[in-house]
């Protein structure tokens, strides 16, 4: 049987990788991908906590579903922003987007 610790460590690692990606990647889309990684690790945590702490209830799952929805919305808006910035600035590099208003 797989103890809870495995899942949590796996999620933590995945989260740290995601964090590294966000902090380090130059490309805005890469940053978004890393954010996706972090969100996935969150969901894994949620489901594992549900499975190990309160399998009879369904609040963990409901929580996960809402996080799914939020992730989807976040990605769509994020990409839309990046594309509009790209259209305006012809660049997707995070460092170029250092002005509040062009």
């Amino acid at each position, binding site marked *: 049987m797989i103890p809870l610790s495995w899942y949590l460590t796996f999620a933590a690692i995945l989260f740290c990788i995601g964090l590294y990606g966000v902090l*380090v990647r130059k490309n805005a889309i890469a940053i978004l991908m890393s954010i996706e990684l972090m969100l996935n690790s969150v969901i894994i945590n949620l489901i594992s906590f549900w499975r190990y702490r309160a399998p009879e209830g369904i609040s963990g799952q409901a929580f996960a579903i809402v996080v799914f929805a939020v992730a989807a919305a976040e990605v769509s808006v994020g990409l839309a922003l990046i594309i509009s910035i790209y259209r305006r600035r012809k660049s997707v590099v*995070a460092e170029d987007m*250092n*002005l509040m208003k062009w």
Partner: protein
Amino acid sequence: MSTDLLVWLLPLPPLLAFFLIILLTNRYKAFSHSIAIGAALLSWLGSMVVFFRAINTEHLNLNPFSSAINWIPTGDTWLQVGIWVDPLTAVTLFFVSWTVLMIFIYSVGYHNYGQPQGEHDQKGLQPHGASIADEHGHKHIVPSIEPMYSRFFAFIGLFAFGMYTLVVSDNLLTLFIGWEIMGLCSYLLIGFWYQKPTARAAMIKAFLTTRVGDVFMLLGIAYLYTAIGSLSFSDIFKPETLHILAQTPALGGFLGLSAAGLIGILLFFGTVGKSAQWPLHVWLPDAMEGPTPVSAMIHAATMVSAGVYLVIRMFPLLQAGSVHGQLTPPMMLMTIIGAFTAIFAATIAIAQNDIKRVLAYSTISQLGYMIAALGIGAYVAAAFHLVTHAFFKALLFLGSGSVIHGVEHGVLHTGENVDPQDMFNMGGLRKKMPITFWTFLIGGLALSGFPLITAGFWSKDEILADAFGHGHWVVFIILALAALLTAFYTMRQITLTFLGNPRTKSAEHAQETHWTMTLPLIILGVFAIALGWSGISESFPLIGGILPNFVHEFVGSTLAEFPEALPFSVWPLLVSILVSLGGLTAGWLVYRNQKVGAEDPLKRALGPVYTVLKNKYYFDELYNIIFVRPAYWMADTFTNQILDRKIIDGILHFIARIASSVGGILRNYFDKPIVNGFGDFVGEGVKKVGRNLKIIQTGRVQQYLIMALILAFGAMFFFVFTSLQH
């Protein structure tokens, strides 16, 4: 109507007249003089009713007409104000109402009512006459109407109100109020023709000198109030209060006087001011600048007599503490001042040329008579003389007014440039102005005390008899001399103005004055004679018993203990007859053929003394030196130059200098370096901090994230470690 209510209403009509004229009918001359005369008539009628009721009530002084109302709340008690009619008040009311009415009527004529308006007559100057063309075209100059006609009537209305309140009031406070109103009116009326500089100076002089007297009087009233807690006569004249006042020494043992003495003296000073006695007499002759009805009313009948009325009213207080007829200090002072003023004024009167100034000085001497009489205790005689003097002095003044008026008429007619008031420009007016002549003659004889027929003789004789009877030899001699001089200057005046032949053309053209002026003269003339007979003492030989000595019984009864009638002695009678006839004949002899432009025979007779008398013993100059110049000096040099400019301004400038220097120091050493410095320091500091912090804001999202995470981890590790510890 109950007498109390009637007495309350006596003073009101003149006051209403005053307000009506001032506020409403100032422009309509006819309307305003009719209101004024109507008011005087009403008051006169009320006074007559009150007088006759007073005569018919027995023991009036025990139950006088009196009622009082609460006026000023003084803690739990009230200061009461009311009316008080006892025999003295009744008699005073009698002569006041008569003289006031007569003067009101006389004023109508005096101010040329009905004459045309003068072309270049100005307000505040005597009317110069108007030129009119009669039916066949040649020009005449006719006396013109007084431009400020209704204003005059308003002021004498106010004056009448003041006199009436003084007479009927039952306490010293309302008496004092009436006293002050009269002072004000005298000021306004003396300066009626305010454009004349002399009138202006006279009105201020009159007001200030009476003011000096009033101050002492007020002190007296205040001291009295503090002493007995009330001012009404009923409280003052209670025997026990008088006894207390007599016993208690004056505050601080002032000259060893008793309280009553000190109060008496202070009140007497009020009278000295008001009735123009010796030290404060200077204002009365100058008051002649006012129109003649004013001089008559204020300076003959009412105002000056008010002063004597006060002293008569307060006689019991003054007499308090005298043991079996011995003179108390205030009475002593009164006799001295009274007698001296009498002889002093009489000497000046003989050297005056102006018809009104002679009468002014004669008033002063007659008042001196009354004060002297009161001083020696002749209460009834003084009261009697007060009444008679009011009548014949008013008569003389109005007579002189009509004489001046007539001569003025002549001056306008002839266009001669001559002073209408100087007796040496007159003469021979007997034929031109018969009524004025006869009434003036009656007044003159009454003044000089022509034996048996004139009222003056009986009242003056009474005083001399009292003086003789009570053994005051010095007073008797002085008063007799004064009577001699009085008779002399009266006859001088009559002969210069009426007898002989006219010394100037304008005197020739003088005309008899209008009936409104001569009627009052006649009425006053009647009184000047008839009044005397009411006061003949019973013990007089021959005609003693015919008429009851009404004055003695009636007026005498006002005193607590009834003064006993003196036994008749022939000496004072002989002296008074001798004195009056001698004076008259001497006056006539000296001035009977006075030529035009000739000098005054007295000048040669008296020489240097004459000039001294002419200049009124130089008292005006003396006061000028003693009081006026120091006052100016005080005002200008001392307070203005020294005190104000040098000291106060100096201090202020000094303070200003200090302030500015301190300000400068603060500015340079505190404000600039420290406050501004701190301000700049803060500004620069913020800028510097801002510059340093700026570099943090790189705009790179990831750098922000890193910083945030570092801080977050710091916090996390901190908490984790702390939680790990325990």
